[in-house]
């Protein structure tokens, strides 16, 4: 909570902070696994190149010694509880490492009954930020290499976790680039905005990485894969692309936790999180709903009030 107030301008984050978090994660993971309190830990392992990290599933105390936390730990691991690693959950309790933004996704999944709170053990990380996609990672986490979402993060300090690791270092006050971009787009005329999004969406190659990486896109059959009747065109043409991105933003409205993984994985650099942010703003304004780190029973679009605004309806 007070993390934001404490922010002051510093060049980069002290490496000892990452070492301390890594050590705390390892100690806890080893303890949990050797006590057999959990069957697996979903965490980050070192990548093959120095300074990289990959998501990993750890099942023995020996393996747990390799867990790390660094600014390269960009992935939202809550994804592994819904789709790819669905089988793991059945065997027993799983521990998962979560940054604040991942925790919002996790809370959302609990709210949607995709994950049971008693089935997981959350290790929350007081996160100072992670690298942005395609950033120069040589100098550690700096203002140039930090992800855009982390520049205006409000969830450095996780809440409602089973174990909190790390103490937040002093964080630099960074300009909110994404909020500025959003404000810039809002100020344009509808024609200019259409031209902007038309150009952005025309880049789309429909690899659907944004869907695959999203913790909330867990439908067994996606609407966009359906034919007969076909809801939206599946080939990467402007018409289908526009429809896909509008539908994606609509399906995530009121659910998105703001981890911005979609934007990170986009090979064509489409600013997808702007759409998500815009919808989150709208739902906050209309229905006073915000994604939170503790599960909420219902999202804004699955409940209603009799006196909801209907000024746009005749």
């Amino acid at each position, binding site marked *: 909570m007070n993390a934001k107030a404490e922010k002051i301008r510093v060049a980069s984050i002290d490496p000892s902070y990452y070492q301390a978090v890594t050590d705390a994660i390892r100690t806890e993971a080893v303890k949990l696994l050797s006590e057999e309190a959990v069957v697996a830990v979903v965490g980050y392992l070192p990548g093959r190149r120095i300074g990289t990290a990959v998501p990993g599933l750890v099942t023995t105390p020996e393996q747990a010694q390799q867990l790390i936390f660094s600014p390269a730990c960009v992935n939202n691991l809550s994804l592994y509880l819904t789709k790819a690693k669905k089988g793991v959950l059945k065997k027993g309790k799983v521990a998962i490492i979560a940054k604040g933004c991942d925790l919002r996704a996790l809370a959302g999944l609990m709210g949607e009954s995709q994950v049971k709170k008693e089935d997981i053990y959350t290790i929350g990380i007081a996160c100072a930020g992670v690298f942005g996609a395609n950033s120069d990672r040589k100098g550690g986490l700096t203002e140039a290499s930090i992800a855009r979402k982390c520049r205006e993060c409000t969830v450095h300090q996780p809440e409602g976790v089973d174990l909190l690791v790390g103490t937040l270092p002093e964080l630099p006050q960074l300009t909110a680039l994404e909020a500025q971009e959003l404000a810039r787009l809002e100020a344009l005329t509808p024609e200019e905005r259409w031209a902007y999004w*038309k150009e952005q969406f025309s880049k789309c190659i429909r690899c659907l990485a944004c869907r695959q990486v999203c913790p909330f896109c867990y439908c067994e059959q996606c609407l966009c894969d359906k034919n007969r009747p076909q*809801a939206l065109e599946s080939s990467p043409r402007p018409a289908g692309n526009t429809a896909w991105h509008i539908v994606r933003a609509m399906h995530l409205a009121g659910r998105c936790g703001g981890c911005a993984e979609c934007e990170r994985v986009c090979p064509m650099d489409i600013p997808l999180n702007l759409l998500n942010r815009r919808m989150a703003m709208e739902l906050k304004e209309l229905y006073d709903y915000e994604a939170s780190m503790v599960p909420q029973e219902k999202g804004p679009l699955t409940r209603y009030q009799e006196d909801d605004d209907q000024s746009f309806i*005749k």
Partner: protein
Amino acid sequence: MHAEKLQHDFEPKIVAFVCTWCTYAGADLAGTSRMQYPANVRVLKFPCTGRIDPVFILRAFQKGADGVLVSGCHPGDCHYMAGNFHARRRFAAFRALLGFVGVDLERLQFSWVSAAEGGKWVEVVTELTEKVRAMGPMKEFKALEDEEQWSGALNTPELREAFESIT
């Protein structure tokens, strides 16, 4: 008997997504009461406004609609108790999204028309048709539909030359 048919330069295509219990019955009442309203509207009947997916609206625009009307029961009158309450929230969000992407929201109209409001149906349809007629055809989505290449940037001199050599 019939009012004189006016000739217009542009006849907009209006797609109306209506709920079967209220607005469809309301439109039916307008018909049986022999009220006149523009024939530009194509009515699609749904069980409830809650069944009307935003994708339908998108698809209507893509396939050539110049205006879309979504209409159902008044709040509290839903045959399924809460379908229109949920729809109201969903469409409020969807409107905001379309607005952010740059779609002219004047072409998208929502209304509550009960089974007894044949007159209101006529009024809503007429007003939307005239509004869209004045605005002209919906070009944005149709332009997208006509574009074949996924990137308009593929137009380098080399490519142009190669293209001309084969045609």
